[in-house]
């Protein structure tokens, strides 16, 4: 490395743009180059010199005296605003509850796809129970079965909607389950 090249790379050194090898070489060069050391000294003190130069500048007093004041919130207006805000929040909450209830009722009164299929199919007395069971909902459900001499009553209540299916079969023709 000759004397001229490192001096030219002082700007890159100051801006931290040199790769590690060149940086090490430049730092070694600094010990023997007075002009570079001087420039580096100027560079390191430059920011503080600039800050000092501007620190003495202040806004004119007459403008400082006329600075806009953020008005203190009038308590009456503030209370009115709070009251309006509370009423809006309450209305939104009430509307949400009504909407949720409406959706729940609508969902419960309309049979789902599975129950529609079950209802639309006429009960075939000879149809095996297993075949019909495939149409039952997959969601958790409770099944209650009561057998008497004349009939079998089967209720299925799905856990998701609470909708109850009731099937009545003549006991004598109902095939026994395994």
């Amino acid at each position, binding site marked *: 490395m000759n004397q001229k090249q490192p001096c030219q790379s002082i700007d890159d050194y100051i801006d931290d743009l040199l790769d590690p090898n060149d940086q090490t070489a430049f730092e070694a060069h600094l010990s023997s180059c007075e002009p570079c050391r001087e420039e580096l000294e*100027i560079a390191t003190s430059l920011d503080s010199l600039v800050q*000092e130069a*501007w620190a*003495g500048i202040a806004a*004119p007093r007459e*403008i400082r005296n006329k*600075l*806009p004041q953020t008005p203190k919130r009038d308590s009456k207006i503030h209370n009115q605003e709070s009251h309006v805000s509370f009423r809006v929040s309450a209305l939104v909450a009430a509307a949400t509850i009504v909407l949720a209830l409406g959706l729940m009722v609508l969902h419960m009164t309309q049979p789902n796809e599975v129950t529609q299929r079950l209802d639309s199919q006429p009960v075939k007395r000879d149809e095996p129970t297993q075949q019909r069971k495939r149409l039952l909902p997959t969601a958790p459900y409770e099944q209650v079965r009561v057998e008497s001499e004349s009939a079998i009553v089967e209720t299925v209540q799905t856990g998701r909607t609470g909708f109850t299916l009731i099937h009545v079969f003549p006991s004598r023709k109902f095939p026994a389950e395994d």
Partner: protein
Amino acid sequence: MEIDYEHYSDGLFRFALSLSRDPHVAEDLLQDCLLKAHRARNQLNQRSSTKAWLFQIMFNLWRDQARQKQQKHRPEIQSIDDQFEVYSREPSPVEKVMANETSRQIFLWMQSLPDQQRTVLFLSVVEQLNHQQIADMLGTSRDSVKSTLSQARKQLRKKIKAAKQSNP
């Protein structure tokens, strides 16, 4: 949103002076800026920096004004030198001896830099805004800000070095 205008007024005035290089224009800019900020204070997002928001308003005002006037008239640097003393805070005795002449000289050198270099140097070094904030304000990239800042520092170093050599 409440804004402590008192807290930002000196910085905004300095920025106005850096942009316009004319103390009278800077005064008008400061008043316009504070008025505009006060009217629009509800637009200030709580997550954004109040300082950056105020400085953006100041920069936009200056840019609009400069476009309108086409910057036909440029004040002489010497007139700023005169005003430098008018707007300077009362210095301490030590500052009077040590810093005043150097500060005045640095101030003048900086004010003689090209607009972009001067503005970036001011915002970065004096107001301590980060590169991204400056890039957002000036509508440029971070790399451009870094490059401009480097050029500005280099220019100032040259002037200081030249002055040292002529007055060892």
